[in-house]
């Protein structure tokens, strides 16, 4: 065993003690690595957005090891591969290290290093200038993640209503709107799916296992171990499918038909939860009439799933009711009709009596949360530039806006010009489809600032690049989570001082506010003060929160736990579960979802679909040395039959060409028997175009780059992205 000298030991504790200023309360304990004494700093992970509880073991100002935080009520000491690899992000030699101002042409990649003072003065001056010339609405913000709140406040105070995150129109928006229309509240994150208590789990496109959020994997494995039946609907035999009782390799784009056929079985055979529907739901008679003709035989013709199997799986759900967990999914922007598909999933959940019931979808529990009083925000007369209220009636501002809408407006100057972009932690090139448009829009800008940890492609086009500290080096607003069985608050607090000249986001926003004369919108003195104000009404011990990382409260997850005082069970317009939606009826949309066919791939083309790998988070982790070691590129998967038709073999080097002639770089073909013949699948997030990312640059290919077409959901403006088709060319022919 390694021994350490007394002097080293004292040095270690000395530094650890001094760290008190970095993170409030800590416990000192022998760490696991070589028995060194370490400070244990609990914080929230940010290798993805799930915010699992982490314990950072810190000695000599360095993070030695990340462990799961056993006190965290949601994640209970578990961490995924990415969470365990957070140290390799912290120590990534490619990090943005100091502020930079562009000196060359936009996109040329020439910058000069400047001080923070110079950088922030520059930012302040440019923002003032834009406001004067074009009005504050001419600046749009592209944030990502809950911690972007500081920048949201800054930009609102500045006077622009224009902010949009891909979380809405490129991810979970349709799902949240669909469930809100049905049950009166969005699904939210983390999804309150009661997998561990479920008798029957239904995954439609969700690929838990490859898509890893630790607590969701734990609940999934627990539920299956307790005997839950599993139905997996996916064109590809996923990891989840390998654990399923039924794998339904559905024809892509036909999920709503399957859902309607399931409803047909459950309604016509009277397998629904009658008492529950009688008590809580409206519109059953309409639904009954609506689904009459959607028989399993009809469903088979559309979905290519045998009618008998549609019946069997409907019966399995009915047998398990109300403990049926139909996972609402997360990234659901597929075909431009996604809100209606989410509605169909919600209605099926309601028929089975599963919303608010053990083993189904559980209810959120409110938490008292402190509000920091701010001066009134300026009102914009011009309104939002993406015109979401007018073009897409159900896209609300609170739901993050439309990224592609802001890009369109930047290009068209209609309804008014957008001349400046502030990008905070969002990858605008890779998370929004039709990237050619994004690039053209950027070229029209007077000013673009990017705040990021790594030199993503977009930094090359920026006028100003500000290096943010990683999650292990900064304070962020606490996670206040209501969609957990025990609602909780958990903190992100710095484990170590920021490396290089990087700075935490809260500091950057507050300092910028100072330059703009908006200090009054940042009335808190420091992170401790900010945290204290937010948790004030929770009646918890601040030092306990900081030393344990999280504090949880009793929850009321099921209908039987609720009292009148907890508010309405179903806060829809009617106060009931709306099987037939009054809102949609008023807006002249289908009040109950219909099946609408989506465009088929032309001859010789495959539909491009995509998913996740457990060791990567979108485009954020490909440069992580430990994760790159496990997966450095994304092959394209096609079926054995499709490969035979092309005369191609596993491992061959190929090029994909989409319907508009856009080609991928040369990539590796993976051939599998366990997939439909009409799709090409890959893992999203690869193919970075940034020389600064020395590991990730040009590793694999970008599926986003092949998404030159989108199908927009008329209800809320989400961009369906599974409407692109590719053909596979040999390296020589390409």
């Amino acid at each position, binding site marked *: *065993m390694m021994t350490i*000298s007394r*002097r*080293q030991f004292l*040095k270690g504790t000395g530094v650890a003690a001094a760290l008190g200023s970095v993170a409030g309360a800590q416990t000192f304990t*022998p760490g*696991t*690595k*070589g*028995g060194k004494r370490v400070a244990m700093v609990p914080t929230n992970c940010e290798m993805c957005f799930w915010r699992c509880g982490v314990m950072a073991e810190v000695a000599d100002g360095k993070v030695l*090891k*990340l*462990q*799961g935080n056993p006190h965290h009520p949601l994640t209970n*000491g*578990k*961490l*995924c*591969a*990415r*969470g*365990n*690899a957070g*140290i390799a992000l912290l120590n990534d030699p490619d990090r943005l290290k100091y502020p930079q101002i562009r000196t060359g042409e936009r996109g040329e990649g020439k910058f000069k290093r400047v001080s923070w003072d110079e950088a922030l003065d520059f930012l302040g001056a440019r923002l003032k200038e834009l406001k004067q010339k074009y009005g504050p609405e001419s600046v749009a913000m592209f944030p990502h993640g809950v911690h972007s709140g500081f920048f949201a406040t800054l930009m609102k105070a500045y006077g622009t209503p224009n902010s949009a995150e891909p979380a809405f129109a490129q991810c979970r928006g349709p799902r949240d709107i669909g469930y809100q229309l049905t049950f009166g509240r969005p699904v939210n994150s983390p999804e309150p799916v009661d997998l561990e208590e479920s008798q029957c789990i239904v995954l439609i496109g969700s690929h*838990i*296992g*490859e898509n*890893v959020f*630790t*607590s969701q*994997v*734990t609940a*999934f*494995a*627990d539920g*299956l*171990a307790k005997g839950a039946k599993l139905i997996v609907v996916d064109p590809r*035999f996923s*990891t*989840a*499918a*390998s*654990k399923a009782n039924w*794998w339904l*390799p559905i024809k892509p784009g036909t999920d709503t038909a399957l859902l309607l056929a399931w409803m047909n079985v459950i309604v016509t055979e009277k397998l629904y939860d009658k008492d529950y529907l009688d008590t809580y739901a409206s519109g059953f008679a309409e639904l009954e009439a609506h689904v009459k003709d959607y028989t399993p035989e009809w469903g088979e013709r559309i979905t290519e799933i045998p009618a008998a199997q549609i019946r069997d799986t409907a019966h399995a759900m009915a047998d398990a009711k109300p403990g049926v967990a139909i996972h609402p999914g997360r990234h659901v922007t597929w075909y431009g009709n996604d809100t209606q598909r989410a509605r169909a999933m919600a209605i099926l959940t309601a028929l089975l009596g599963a919303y608010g019931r053990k083993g189904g979808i559980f209810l959120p529990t409110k938490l008292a949360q402190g509000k920091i009083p701010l001066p009134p925000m300026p009102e914009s007369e011009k309104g939002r530039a993406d015109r979401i209220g007018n073009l897409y009636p159900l896209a609300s501002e609170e739901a993050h806006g439309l990224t592609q809408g802001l890009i369109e407006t930047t290009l068209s100057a209609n309804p008014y010009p957008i001349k400046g972009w502030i990008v905070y932690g969002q990858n605008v090139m890779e998370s929004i489809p039709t990237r050619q448009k994004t690039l053209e829009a950027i070229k029209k800008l007077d000013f673009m600032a990017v705040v990021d940890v790594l030199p993503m492609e977009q930094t090359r086009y920026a006028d100003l690049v500000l290096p943010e500290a990683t999650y292990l080096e900064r304070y962020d607003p606490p996670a206040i989570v209501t969609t957990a069985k025990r609602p909780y608050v958990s903190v992100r607090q710095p484990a170590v001082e920021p490396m290089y000249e990087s700075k935490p986001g809260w500091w950057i926003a507050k300092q910028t506010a100072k330059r703009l004369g908006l200090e009054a919108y940042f009335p808190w003195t420091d992170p401790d003060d900010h945290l204290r104000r937010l948790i004030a009404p929770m009646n918890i011990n601040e030092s306990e929160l900081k030393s344990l990382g999280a504090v949880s409260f009793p929850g009321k997850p099921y209908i039987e736990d609720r009292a009148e005082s907890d508010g309405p069970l179903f806060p829809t317009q009617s106060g009931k579960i709306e099987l037939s939606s009054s809102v949609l009826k008023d807006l002249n949309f289908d009040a109950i979802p219909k099946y609408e066919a989506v465009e088929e791939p032309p001859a010789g083309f495959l539909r491009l679909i995509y998913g996740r790998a*457990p*060791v990567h988070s979108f485009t954020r982790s490909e440069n992580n*040395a*430990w*994760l790159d*070691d*496990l997966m450095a590129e994304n092959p394209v998967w096609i079926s054995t039959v499709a490969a035979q038709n092309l005369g191609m073999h596993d491992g061959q080097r190929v090029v994909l060409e989409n319907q508009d002639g856009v080609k991928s770089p040369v990539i590796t073909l993976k051939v*599998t*028997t*366990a997939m439909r013949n009409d799709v090409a699948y890959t893992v999203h997030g690869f193919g970075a175009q940034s020389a600064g990312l020395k590991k990730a640059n040009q590793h694999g290919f970008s599926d986003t780059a092949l998404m030159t077409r989108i199908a927009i959901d008329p209800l809320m403006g989400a961009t369906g992205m599974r409407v692109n088709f590719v053909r596979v060319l040999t390296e020589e022919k390409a």
Partner: protein
Amino acid sequence: MARYAMVVDKERCVGCQSCTVACKSEWDVPNGHARTRVRSAGTNGTYPNFSSVFYVSQCNHCDHPTCVPACPTGATTQEPNGIVTVNTDLCIGCGSCVVACPYGARYVSPATDKVDKCDFCAARVEQGREPACVETCPAKAKIFGNLEDTSGRVFDLVYRKGARRFETREIALGPNVYYVGKQEHLEMAAASFSPQPPQILAAGFVWTKLAKKMVFLAVGATFLGQAVAFFRQLSVGEKQFED
């Protein structure tokens, strides 16, 4: 006395590689190597009826480890609690144990030129913690414990629930990593990852590596007293330098 063992539940494992990275972080495992790995056993069946399963591998801490006699310097030994360890002071990095292991559980670290492998996180276990891979596993697919604790989960899974060892008729060393799961899944993994016959490294190669060590040892034996004093001074000096 404890006798440690691990059980892997194949039905729980989702192949997320959380264990691999937790282990890498705990033991500074260099890129390109692993103390514990997760691999897919491929896909069996015909459309649309398939099976697939993950296989989690690491040192098995065998009852009759082939690596121990293969080691020319006595660096690899087995503790009474069953844990097979490598004494890096004695290891010459010759790789004899690497090829002697039927499970491919060992590697020569490019960082240290010594052999490295899973030791069931002995240091963590001493502290009363679970091995890093077990503690972090989101699917709770790895269970670690004392095979002699009749009230423990490992005992239950191994002696009552039929957890299976991955060995063949030819290669039966008594591995102490067990697997539970559907018979079909166990067979798939066994077919893809069955233990390979231990190899013996060419004597010449070992000898060149060993020769350096032998000279060193001979010098030590002749001038034992002086040598001890000399090395003590050296190591003290090193520490001061480190500070």
